[in-house]
């Protein structure tokens, strides 16, 4: 039997079509497009090689031994360096190439320590507007070892309440004896030798009066001649917890 010419041609066309399909499927189309396995492997690889930003908890201690050692024993031992200093992998790889940020503002500490009713009880929280409102937290607390600063116990032994009030006030850094001359005997027989107390507006004016010579820069200034002019300063401001701003 003889195969008709048409069938012969048809066979050739068919062969070309099949061949072409195979060629496209296996050679021209990249395999990643058709092989799920391969495309997933590539995606996984791409994810795995993305650049990092955080160097990680162990990256800083080799070069900053002192800070790391101090922090490791402190209340802040669990905190990541980069939580406060922002992601720093560039710095860890080459310290001169980039510097981590050093935030000294109160808002850094407030993110964790500001009072919030939803925070677990027992977590140390403060009222940020009342706790030494005018000072950066780091003037009193070392961020890498934030124990509450030792308050001198001398006068606190008997005047603990005043001491505590003052410790968190804007007068925290003034010693008691700045304002009270206390005879030595006051500490042994308190009632027989009472310390002095400020007795005039000018006493406070030495630090708070406008244009007062030698007054500390950070003390806010008022015009003594008009500010609460008819009263003693401590009739309005409690000297151990002065409030001037809300």
């Amino acid at each position, binding site marked *: *039997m*003889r*195969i008709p010419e048409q069938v*012969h041609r048809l*066979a050739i066309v068919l*062969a070309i079509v099949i*061949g072409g399909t*195979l*060629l496209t499927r*296996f*050679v021209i189309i*990249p*395999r*990643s497009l058709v*092989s*799920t396995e*391969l*495309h*997933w*492997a*590539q*995606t*996984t*690889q*791409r*994810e*795995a*090689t*993305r*650049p*990092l*930003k*955080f160097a*990680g*908890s162990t990256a800083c201690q080799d070069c900053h031994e002192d800070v790391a050692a101090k922090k490791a024993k402190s209340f*802040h031992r*669990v*905190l*990541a360096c*980069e*939580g406060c200093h*922002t*992601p720093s992998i560039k710095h860890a790889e080459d310290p001169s190439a980039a510097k981590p940020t050093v935030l000294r503002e109160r808002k850094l500490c407030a*993110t*964790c320590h500001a009072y*919030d*009713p*939803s*925070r*677990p009880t027992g*977590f140390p929280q403060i009222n940020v507007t009342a706790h030494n409102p005018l000072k950066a937290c780091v003037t009193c607390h070392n961020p890498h070892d934030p124990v509450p600063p030792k308050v001198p116990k001398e006068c606190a032994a008997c005047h603990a309440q005043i001491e505590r009030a003052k410790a968190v006030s804007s007068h925290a850094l003034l010693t008691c004896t700045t304002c009270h001359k206390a005879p030595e005997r006051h500490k042994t027989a308190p009632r027989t030798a009472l310390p002095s107390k400020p007795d005039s507006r000018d006493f406070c004016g030495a630090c708070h009066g406008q244009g007062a010579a030698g007054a500390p820069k950070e003390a806010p200034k008022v015009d003594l001649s008009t500010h609460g002019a008819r009263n003693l300063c401590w009739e309005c401001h409690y000297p151990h917890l002065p409030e001037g701003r809300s």
Partner: protein
Amino acid sequence: MNERREFLKGAIVFFPAAGVLAALAREVAGREAPAKDAGAKDAPKPYTPADHFYGMGIEIDKCIGCNLCAVACKAENRVPDEPFYFRTWVERYTIMRDGEVIVENISLGPQKETMADAREVVRTFFVPKLCNQCQNPPCVQVCPVNATFTTPDGAVIVDETRCIGCRYCIQACPYGARYLHPATRTADKCTFCYQRIVKGLQPACVEVCPTQARIFGDLKSRASRLVRFKRMNKIHVLKPQLNTEPKVYYAQLDGEVR
């Protein structure tokens, strides 16, 4: 007999040609296929995904709502800064005496004073949220182009070159953990910081958590902190009734949390 000869001739040409094509295809594939452990070149021992299976533990009683996790996540993973794109975020739950539950995403920025509410508050606490890296992920099931899948080590990831941005997965996720990245117009989500975990590092959110409220670990390693955490605490997952089998495990989770 002539025709049979013809046929055989054709076959002789065709089958070897197919063989050559197949070989060619394999060769091309070999060029494209990434070496399985290329990332291991600089690492001491090669990372084998199949040896690990990752999950996360979250201890509600420890979370102080400082939001550092959400901030760190954005930095590590180039999530847009706008305060409505998140791979992880923190919710504040406030449960009122009358039974109402107020949920507020504190990662959205300065909070409004819900506390001024005169009604009595029974309980209030924070709940960190992220992709639950489900073992039975609805988002993967709905993807029409196979662009999202689970890696052997248990992270659900998205191929941004293949994703067509149809948002099916965003709709399908019962935890709201996916979003459409405004730059790539593709779905984006938490990967457990895949780039970090393959190098043995912690995800960024776990790294910066100041109270260890987040615990990351390998479920395949009996010595991992996560396995211990699961053993030591009564564990809950979010929306267990959906049978998604999440791998984010919560301790001290309140029944009110959805």
